[in-house]
Each structure stands twice: as structure tokens, then as C-alpha cells.
């Protein structure tokens, strides 16, 4: 394997329940990989394992040739992995501007940050991302009062501010309007030039629009992988997933 992210034989059990069962995956740099599967397949758990929120029972995760298995969340984030959560997690009491500013985590050392009052490059990047996310008029509002869609966009904006090499997006379009979904698809496809993305989604239309590679998970392991066409034609996938899928 020579991908940006390599997962080798990952296993995770909670007490006696095996949630991730010998899962392996390779994500090539500059591609957009969509992770799909029925509820309970282990998609969010996989994200948790990659980002260090939970530790694997066994297996290895390699990012940019570094073994990141078992590292803590902030070390993995610093290594270049950014994450957008399933339930939008923004800093509710801080303003939109402050949210984006904190996400610009070039310098994370507390000692240095005690002495810093102006961050070089922040203002420009912040304007850029705020415009992209459509939040320029909301910059001084508390993040807690944003609508659901705006909160999604804020969190996407925060991940973009991080400038990670790998972005993990967990159901990014939940609650978005048609035009917003279109905009998200455009942005994701653009991002492929500078970042690698793994997107967990249920909306097959969206997946069809953006994915280079589709990975289907089932019961904690890999069921099938390939282009969207190959996946849709795969009889195993049909049986397990597409047959049970709710309307997109």
C-alpha cells in the first residue's frame, strides 16, 4: 500500500461486541473516497479510530508513512487530519469569527500563544473561508444561534481553516438545501486539488456526484470498493445495502 492513509486489519471491540472486524483501507492522495454503508456498519467508529478518539483493539493506521495508531487526538490533528462531526460541533459561545480563528491552528504551543496577539495570515484566510461558507454577515454572531445549515457550514469552514492534508467529513450535507448541496459538491471537488477527502454519506445522489472511490462497509468490515458504477452493479452490495437503503 502507498496511499496517504492506510488502514491495516483494524479491529475494535466494545466489551464483547466486535464493532470493527478486520477492516483494511487505502486512500490515495488527492482523491475523494466516500464511505457508505447501512447504519451500524461502523463508519463513524472508523472515523473515531482514525482521529484517535478511540483506540483500536488491534490493527494499524498509517498516515503519510507515519504510524499514528494509538496517538492522541491532538497529535493526529497536528499531523494533518481534520474532522467534521456527524452532529455539528462548533464552539457555541464563541462568535463565528472566533470559531474560524481558533481553527487556524498553525501554532498550537501554549507558551508561544501567550505572547501572540496578532496571527500572520489569519485575516486573509478567514475572509476567504467566511466568503466560501457564506457567513461573512454572521461573523460577529454567537455560533450557538446559527441555523442548522449555517452551523454545518461553519464547521466545514473550521476544517478548511485547519488546512489539513486529509479531511474526514461525517454526513456533511445533513439538513442542507438543494442549492447548498450543489455548492458543497462543487467545493469538495475543488478541494481534491489540495486535500484528500473521506466523506461518510447516506445520500447516494451526492455520493455519485463527488466520489472517485466508493467504499462500502458492512458489519465492521469492507464489503466492496470501487467506482460508483461498480458498486451499484455489485450484487453483494445490492443485497446488503441498497436493498435496505431508505430514500436518499
Amino acid at each position: 500500500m502507498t496511499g496517504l492513509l492506510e488502514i491495516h486489519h483494524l479491529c475494535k471491540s466494545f466489551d464483547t461486541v466486535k464493532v470493527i472486524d478486520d477492516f483494511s483501507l487505502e486512500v490515495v492522495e488527492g482523491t475523494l473516497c466516500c464511505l457508505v454503508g447501512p447504519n451500524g456498519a461502523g463508519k463513524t467508529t472508523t472515523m473515531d479510530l482514525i482521529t484517535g478518539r478511540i483506540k483500536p483493539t488491534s490493527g494499524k493506521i498509517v498516515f503519510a508513512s507515519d504510524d499514528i495508531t494509538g496517538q492522541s487526538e491532538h497529535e493526529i490533528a497536528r499531523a494533518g487530519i481534520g474532522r467534521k462531526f456527524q452532529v455539528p460541533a462548533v464552539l457555541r459561545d464563541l462568535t463565528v469569527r472566533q470559531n474560524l480563528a481558533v481553527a487556524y491552528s498553525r501554532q498550537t504551543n501554549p507558551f508561544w500563544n501567550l505572547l501572540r496577539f496578532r496571527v500572520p495570515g489569519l485575516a486573509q484566510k478567514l475572509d476567504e473561508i467566511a466568503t466560501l461558507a457564506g457567513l461573512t454577515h454572521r461573523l460577529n454572531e454567537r455560533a450557538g444561534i446559527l441555523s442548522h445549515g449555517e452551523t454545518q457550514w461553519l464547521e466545514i469552514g473550521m476544517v478548511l481553516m485547519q488546512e489539513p492534508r486529509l479531511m474526514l467529513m461525517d454526513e456533511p450535507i445533513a439538513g442542507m438545501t438543494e442549492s447548498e448541496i450543489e455548492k458543497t459538491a462543487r467545493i469538495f471537488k475543488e478541494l481534491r486539488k489540495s486535500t484528500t477527502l473521506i466523506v461518510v454519506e447516506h445520500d447516494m445522489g451526492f455520493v455519485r456526484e463527488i466520489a472517485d472511490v466508493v467504499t462500502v462497509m458492512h458489519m465492521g468490515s469492507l464489503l466492496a470498493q470501487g467506482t460508483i458504477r461498480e458498486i451499484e452493479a455489485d450484487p453483494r452490495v445490492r443485497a446488503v445495502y441498497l436493498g435496505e437503503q431508505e430514500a436518499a
Partner: protein
Amino acid sequence: MGNLYYNKTAQWIAYAAFFAALAIVPMAIDDDFLLNQLATYGVYGMLALSISLCWGFGGILNLGQGIAFGLGAYGMAMTMQMQTQTESNPIPPIMLNNGLDYLPFLWWPFQNTAVGLIFAVAVPTLFCAVFGGIMFRARVSGPFFAIMTLAMLSAFYTIILDQQAYTGGVNGITPPAPFQFAGIEIEPYSPLAYWTVFFALLTATVIAKLITQSSFGLVTQAIRDDAERVRFLGYGVAGYETMIYTISGLIAAVAGCLWVMLVQYVSPAQLDVGFSISMVIWAAIGGRMSLIGSIIGAFVIQGAQSYLGDAFLSTWLLILGGFFIIIVRFLPNGLASLLEAALGLLATKKKTTTKTPRESNCAEPVPAE
């Protein structure tokens, strides 16, 4: 023009005005006894400031600030005590009265004033760094951490009380002479003592305010909001939490030193649980999110308490307790939040009267979910 409360320039002006008022006091008051009392309020103000920084700003409730305060106070008392010991009288009475005819190892650094002062401040600060580091690395936070600080406070109280020969036990240490610094005697009942406390409070406040406005301050606020999210942005949360807890402890340790300078005495009562929690009460009532609000809270409450005297102490404490309950239940950000709300009302009134057209490319404000 948004809410004036959040305007940084307005804030600095308010702080400047406050300290200017404090500076005028010794020129207006002739009574040295009163000056000394006001100076002790300054010390309480520093304690409330330290709690506000750690809890209001950092989100870390510390019920054991008495550890830093008390250790700083004992360090200062030991330094001051050793200043009065001479060649012919080298051992403090505490040891002699408890059957020790040598100076314990614990007291050695305090034979030199400069070293003593450094130890008085450095030891509690180091404790905070180590204890905080251990706790925060283990992701102990919130109410659990608060209980841990109480446990540590109780532990320190117990050991200081117990080791009579080293600490004076329940009677504590009473240095017989005022503090001497670089040849100058700082008489507790003098404007000099007041000025010393004034400058310490001013410096601590300015440093604390600058911290809140720095990048570190932004990350700390974010951690208060959602520590986990901040982890995923790449920040080592434990480091930030330890740092703010330690800086808060440093301020409290300095306050402890100043307190002994003013009252020339220290005892285990400085590590009493009730006293540590009252620091939290001052900050809570004044407004824990506001540094200056907390300081004023300490002034007002301690001032009222001294004014009411011993006769009404029980009633006063009853009312204070009741008031504290009301604040926590209905006004969690303290009295300063009333000012915030008032200024907010003023700001919206101004907005509607000037009728500024809203920007055209934004959507209608969407109601919160």
C-alpha cells in the same frame, strides 16, 4: 456600534478609571488602620481575579485556591520570621517550644530573603503545575476536578495542622517584625504597604487581561466551550488547562505573600475550605466572566462583612449564602452581567433609532433551533 461591554477600548478605559480611583485613596485617607484594611481587600481582589481567570475564563472551577494562597503565605511568614532571627537567637520560637533545637531542613531556604520570596511563590506555582498537569492529562475536569482540589486542600490543611514543630500547628506563625525588603521596612499600617498591594493588583490585572486577549486566551475560551472539539483542531488541551490553572495559582501565591506582609501572621485557617470557597463566591457574585467584576465583588463582600462586624456575622453569612444561591440560580454570570445586559439594551435602542439598512446579500436572520 455593538454592545459597549465587548468593546476592548472601553474595557481598558474602565480598568484605567478603576485603578485611578484606587490610586487616589491613600491621598484622600489619613487613617493608616483603614489603609491597611483596604489593602487586605486588595489581596482578596487578587484572589477573586485569580478565580475569575481560571474559572470564568478558563472554565476550570478551583475550590482549593487556598493551597496556593496558604503556601505562599506560609513561605512569606517563614521568610519574615527568619529575618528577625539573629546570630544569638537563630532558632524561631516555634521549634524551641516544640522541643526542636535546630532549624528544620524545610526552613533553610527562608534564611535568605530573596530566596525565601522565590520559594514562597515558586513552590505553590510548581504544585499547581504538577497537580494540574497530572489531573488534566488524565482528563479529569469539571466537578470532579473541583472535588479533587478540595481533597488536596484538606490534605494540606491536615498536614500543616499536624506538623506543629515545623509550621506552628494550629497557632501558625506570627513574625514579630514587619517585612524588610532591600533595606526598606514595609510597615503594615502605612501607605507604602497599600502601594505595594496596589501595584501587585494592577500588574496581575493587566497581565490577566492581556492573557485573555492573546491567542492563548482564545484557545482557552474555546476549551471552556468544547474541549474535545479543540483537541481535534490540534491543540494539546491539557497543556492549556494546566497553564491557566498554574498562572491563577501564581497570582494567589503572590496574594498570600502580600497578605502576611499586611497582617504579620498566618495559620491553617488560610487553608480552610470555607475561605477557599468564599473566593469563588466573590467572583461568582461580582461576575466570574469579568476580571474587574470579580475584584469589585471581593471588595464589596469583604467590605460589607467587616463593616457588619462580629455581631451580625451569622445573619450576614446567612444573607450572603442566600444571595449566592439566587445568583447561581438566576444570574450565573453575576452582577457584571446586569451591566452587560443594560449596555446591550442601549446598543439595540441605538440601532433602531439610527435605522441603518441591513446588508443586502445576507439572508434574513434565522431563529435559533
